[in-house]
């Protein structure tokens, strides 16, 4: 049985490599060796050859060594009798197939018209095949694989037996928070075609990602996985062993093969097995059950379509905790990205069209009846399609360990919780919220009261350690909403004052975040009131709440202890904690300095700051920015250089929010050191930045700072600084 699979995979690899050879030689003739080849907007070249072999291919001619490598990995198909061991040969041929895929796919970007739509989400009409994901998507989505938001992905190859099955499988995978990567076809049809037929919204936002109809486009799934290891795993290019092991241990992906599995698809599966990704086939292609390269079985077949996901999850060794919420629509992170157009909306609430708010408040335990959900005012069933209603959501929670400080932490999650229901759209927070419920969901029986059901269920799931009881009141009558909104607003203001007045000096305890140690083992985030975690999603309050929820979790209290250096932000207790938690790799850390023992950087920082010596200042670049920066490195390259838990003076990862903190680079002169940042980041932070700048006595500082429209080299930055007389020029020398 295994021999049959080996034979077909090896034969498929031979076919793919000869196809790659032909397409390469055609491209060479047509374009010449110096023609650029690249996947859109990536710092990882062609990711498989870059990750596995350390090759930096960016021209047609540069594909030659990759082709040579692919050929060198080909082996003859196993003999009929007295064969020599074929597993190693098969796996090598699988890698050869991936290298061939990458050659073929990279050359597609030279075609006119381009066979792919280079976007994050599929356009509603026309070509929905997306091809390779760029680095912005990869970073945004890849991090979900690291933090567990997405447990893995299913590479779906070919077409399901029917459109209904395709939709069912897509929904089930979405409900399990898995990404669905679709490629290849059977008789000209692929799973993505089927989803399109059924009108299912596809794209990265809904986690239903169509790569391409060609079998070779499967490479984009593995390219994504390879880049995730490079980007978040701190794996060095060319370190194939670690890259593949990282994928086996961290990225819980698998292949679902539908319909006939031809030689080329066998070869893709052999390639995927190198990553520890097993294949589950609908049709009978034989099995490879013994474990070792993958965590458990390698190939399992035949499996009925309705059992494939369950089987795949078991074979990959994946534990998915999905708490079924009693609502009549699907639920999961994959539905967060759904769009609901105006004409598809049954009822719309908030969004500056009607008064609205959402509010979490704590009560004493006898004031709350658990799971009491009330809709006070009209339900969805009481109003015609297209109605706009006011809405006020009041979630009252009680628990022995509940604290007032946790209210905003819980409240901040309402957005995700509500948005993750299929056919329910949510945006904003507090009194700026906006909700739409689709006609389709209403038809399925979804009611406004179900928003309460979701809140109740998710608070218990995610905050079970601090929350014992949850009741939800949803007001949909204008006068109630207005009355309650005033009460909520008072609470918002009180909270803001409290958060605003929190300083690093006002507490004895900071919190650690060791979440990222899974990929950066020496990295220790120390989160203080005035310095949020590098990723931007953990502030001091969230860490505190998280510690209460899980006292043995990744967020631990860090006693500050005696001050070593107030300006640099160094404390004895902090240093001791870091020494222990970094496995003795890091002995001291300055929270407010980029030059002297800066904080280590993981891989999921929102921004990286880097010293520009000629400019006597500091630049910072956020992960969305794909262009070149004045330090000579793009974000991706910087991330690769600085990340992985290293402490490198002159570089530091940080959150966006930290830029406008009083403690931002305090040791080096604070915000006045900033000489360059991307325009988008400027716009993002403008209001808060200007307030900070005013307090520093340079109200127009933001306009003095260069961005990519002004300078992309350090020399250009310096010229700009001199032109506008930037305050950094008058600060003491950095170096």
């Amino acid at each position, binding site marked *: 049985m295994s021999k049959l699979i080996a034979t077909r995979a090896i034969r498929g690899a031979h076919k793919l490599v000869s196809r790659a050879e032909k397409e390469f030689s055609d491209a060479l003739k047509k374009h010449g060796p110096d023609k650029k080849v690249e996947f859109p907007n990536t710092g990882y070249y062609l990711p498989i050859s870059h990750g596995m072999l350390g090759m930096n291919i960016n021209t047609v001619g540069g594909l030659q060594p990759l082709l040579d490598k692919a050929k060198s990995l080909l082996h003859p198909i196993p003999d009929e009798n007295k064969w020599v061991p074929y*597993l190693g040969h098969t796996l090598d041929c699988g890698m050869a197939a991936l290298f061939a895929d990458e050659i073929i796919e990279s050359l597609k970007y030279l075609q006119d018209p381009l066979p792919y739509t280079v976007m994050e989400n599929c356009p509603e009409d026309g070509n929905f095949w997306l091809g390779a994901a760029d680095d912005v998507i990869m970073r945004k989505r890849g991090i979900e694989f690291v933090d567990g938001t997405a447990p893995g992905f299913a590479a779906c190859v070919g077409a399901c037996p029917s459109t209904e099955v395709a939709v069912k499988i897509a929904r089930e995978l979405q409900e399990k928070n898995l990404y669905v990567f679709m490629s290849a076809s059977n008789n000209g049809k692929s799973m993505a075609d089927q989803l399109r037929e059924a009108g299912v919204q596809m794209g990265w936002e809904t986690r239903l990602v169509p790569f391409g109809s060609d079998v070779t486009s499967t490479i984009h799934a593995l390219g994504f996985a390879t880049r995730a290891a490079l980007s978040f795993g701190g794996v060095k290019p060319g370190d194939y062993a670690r890259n593949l092991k990282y994928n086996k241990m961290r990225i819980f992906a698998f292949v679902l093969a539908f319909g006939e599995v031809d030689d080329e698809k066998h070869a893709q599966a052999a390639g995927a097995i190198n990553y520890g990704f097993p294949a589950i086939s609908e049709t009978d292609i034989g099995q490879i059950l*013994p474990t070792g390269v993958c965590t458990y079985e390698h190939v399992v077949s035949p499996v009925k379509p309705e059992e494939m996901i369950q089987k795949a999850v078991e074979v990959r060794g994946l534990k998915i905790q999905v708490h079924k919420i009693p609502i009549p629509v699907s639920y999961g992170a994959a539905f967060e990205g759904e769009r609901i157009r105006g004409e598809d909306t049954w009822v719309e609430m908030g969004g500056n069209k009607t008064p609205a708010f959402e509010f979490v408040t704590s009560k004493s335990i006898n004031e709350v009846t658990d799971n009491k959900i009330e809709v006070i005012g009209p339900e969805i069933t009481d109003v015609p399609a297209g109605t706009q209603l006011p809405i006020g959501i009041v979630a009252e929670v009680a628990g022995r360990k509940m604290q007032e400080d946790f209210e905003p932490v819980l409240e901040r999650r309402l957005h995700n919780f509500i948005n993750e229901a299929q056919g329910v759209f949510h945006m904003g927070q507090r009194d700026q919220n906006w909700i739409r419920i689709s006609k389709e969901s209403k038809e399925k029986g979804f009611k406004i009261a179900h928003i309460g059901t979701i809140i109740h269920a998710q608070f218990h799931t995610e905050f079970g350690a601090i929350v014992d009881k949850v009741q939800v009141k949803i007001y949909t009558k204008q006068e109630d909403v207005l009355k309650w909104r005033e009460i909520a607003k008072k609470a918002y203001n009180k909270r803001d004052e409290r958060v605003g007045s929190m300083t690093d000096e006002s507490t004895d305890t900071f919190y650690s975040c060791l979440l990222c140690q899974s990929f950066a083992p020496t990295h220790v985030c120390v989160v203080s009131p005035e310095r949020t975690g590098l990723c931007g999603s953990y502030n001091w309050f969230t860490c505190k709440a998280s510690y209460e929820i899980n006292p043995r979790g990744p967020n631990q209290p860090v006693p500050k202890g005696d001050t070593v250096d107030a300006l640099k932000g160094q404390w004895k207790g902090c240093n001791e904690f870091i020494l222990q938690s970094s496995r003795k790799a890091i002995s001291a850390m300055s929270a407010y300095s980029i030059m002297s023992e800066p904080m280590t950087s993981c891989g999921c920082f929102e921004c990286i700051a880097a010293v520009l010596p000629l400019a006597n200042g500091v630049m910072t670049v956020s992960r969305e920015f794909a262009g070149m920066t004045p330090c000579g490195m793009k974000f991706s390259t910087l991330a690769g250089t600085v990340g992985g838990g290293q402490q490198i003076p002159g570089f530091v990862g940080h959150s966006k929010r930290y830029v406008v903190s009083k403690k931002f680079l305090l040791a080096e002169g604070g915000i006045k050191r900033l000489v360059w940042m991307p325009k988008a980041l400027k716009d993002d932070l403008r209001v808060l930045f200007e307030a900070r700048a005013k307090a520093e006595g340079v109200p127009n500082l933001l306009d003095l700072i260069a961005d990519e429209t002004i300078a992309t080299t350090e020399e250009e930055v310096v010229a700009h600084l001199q032109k506008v007389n930037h305050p950094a020029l008058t600060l003491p020398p950095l170096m």
Partner: protein
Amino acid sequence: MSPTAEKTNENSVCEATIEMLKYSAESNYDTAFQRAQKVKPCPIGEVGACCKHCAMGPCRFNPKKPDEIKGVCGADINTVAARNFCRMIAAGTAAHCEHSRHVSHTFLSAARGDVPGYKIQDVPKLLKVAAEFGIVGGDPATYGGDTKDKPFNKVAEELGQKAIGEFGTEKGLYMIKRAPQKRQEIWKETGVTPRGIDREIVEMMSRTHMGDDADYKNLMLQGSRCSLVDGWGGSMIATELQDIMFGTPVPVRSKVNLGVLKNDQVNIIVHGHNPLMAEMVAVAARDPELVNLAKQKGAKGINIAGMCCSGNEILLRHGIPLAGNFLQQELAIATGAVEAMVVDVQCIMPALGRLVECFHTKLITTSPTVKIQGATHIEFNEHDALNIAKTIVRTAVENYPKRGKTNIPNKTTDLIAGFSHETINYMLGGSFRASYRPLNDNIINGRIRGVVGVVGCNNPRVKHDDVHINLVKELIGNDILVVQTGCSAIACAKEGLLIPEAATMAGKGLREVCEAVGMPPVLHCGACVDNSRILVACTEMVREGGLGNDISDLPVAGCAPEWMSEKAIAIGQYFVTSGALVVFGVTWPTTGSPTLTKYLFEEYEKIYKGKWAFESRGAGQMAAMIIDHINKKREALGIQKAQERKLYDMEARRALEV
């Protein structure tokens, strides 16, 4: 009493051997099979109860009353049996280490370009081994060409020098550091970490001299230390340097048994142990001039076939067929179809010198250390290797017209060989995922119960090949993966156990793994010097994780069911000292001293966590003993009962090492 044609069935299970034994008996050719019946084992010597270390004796002890008699010097049976056993260890170790010394010198010359015909072939392995010897500049990332700072032949030269240094050193051996940390600590604690190859052999001989060490435990300590310089010293150096010079074995398909001799070709058998000569003869046999000469002489070509471990060496590296194992050396000549049997060292029966008188066959000795009456001596010298090899081949070719009546048994079996440590690593994961993980995982999940090395010689005191084959069949039937070297591998090859189709004879779990990998259930790892590969494999299993932290934790064992040579004792001793159970068949050389025997069979377990065992009742009992041992090891590891499939949530995934 010479065996009659009817009784030869009791001497062997190998059909070609049976056929040739009948033929030999009819033709009155003398073979080891017949001599074994004429010469009974000396009952005193057999149990280690005879001391002839001085002229006051020899003193013989009565094994039935071990405590009653003392030697003239007052030595008791424990001292005497231990001395005898230790001298076997020393002799066996010396044999491997002389082989290794020879290889090391040739290696150094090859690195310097002084020996045309020998060169550095496996550069990645050179750099890997060089790094273990602390040679800087061996950067494996730049393999295939010269390293950045140092051309690779310079690296090889330094490695050659350091390898030669291992023999004379008193400061310890580099390869010892390959062993699992815990094992090295056990050696340190017991005081058996070796200081140098020659040092330990010389000290062993010295301590067994009259009037020296008389404490059997103290003698055995040096026995252990001496054996380690074989396994982790001489043998390991030989294996590694041979791989670097001649290529690391990869799986090859070939044939085995006397039927590989060809009626219409010049047949040359290379027999012995060291590939230095065998490799060159194989090259010379392809020389167009000599092939033409063979054709002029009326032959269709020149056919090289191997025998014993020389045969294993060139089988693994070039797929050259094997004519047979130790007890078939005389039978090969008796076919009348062999123009020359070229021999070097070890396991060459002196009987060959007389036997060739009956045939046109030339017995060609090549080593200055091994000369045999009746043989033609063409001394081999690495510095003129190819020319000498050509002379040897030419001698054979010119002998072809003198060939008389031939009787080649029409028996061959297919086999797959070439399972070096590197091959095992590769075949379990390809170039990118090469590791022992699948082996360990499938041991842990119980598809594979354990791994047993079945190795060693033939011995006419038991039915030829019978114990090897039946033991191996029993083991694989119980899901035990078998690794083999030496004449034992040849025995099983003849039975067809070394082809992947043999997986049908394996238990369900082992069969599944064999089918997934495409491997046979019995892996041929090389010559007897390559038992070092099994040490490396065990170490790798420990390093890969999940099976304890020492060789003694692994569900493994070693076995030499038809042993006869002192090398077998040395090998067994180094496996025991490395933490393995080692089971021997046929006979046991210390039974004259129940005290010493108990020490080796029982008390050793407390000292080394490995021990000797003896089982002569047959393959079934031997297999039962081994399976029981493996089950106990599995029990201790907590893997004997099937584990629930673990499903990983994010937290569990974070705990996984990347």
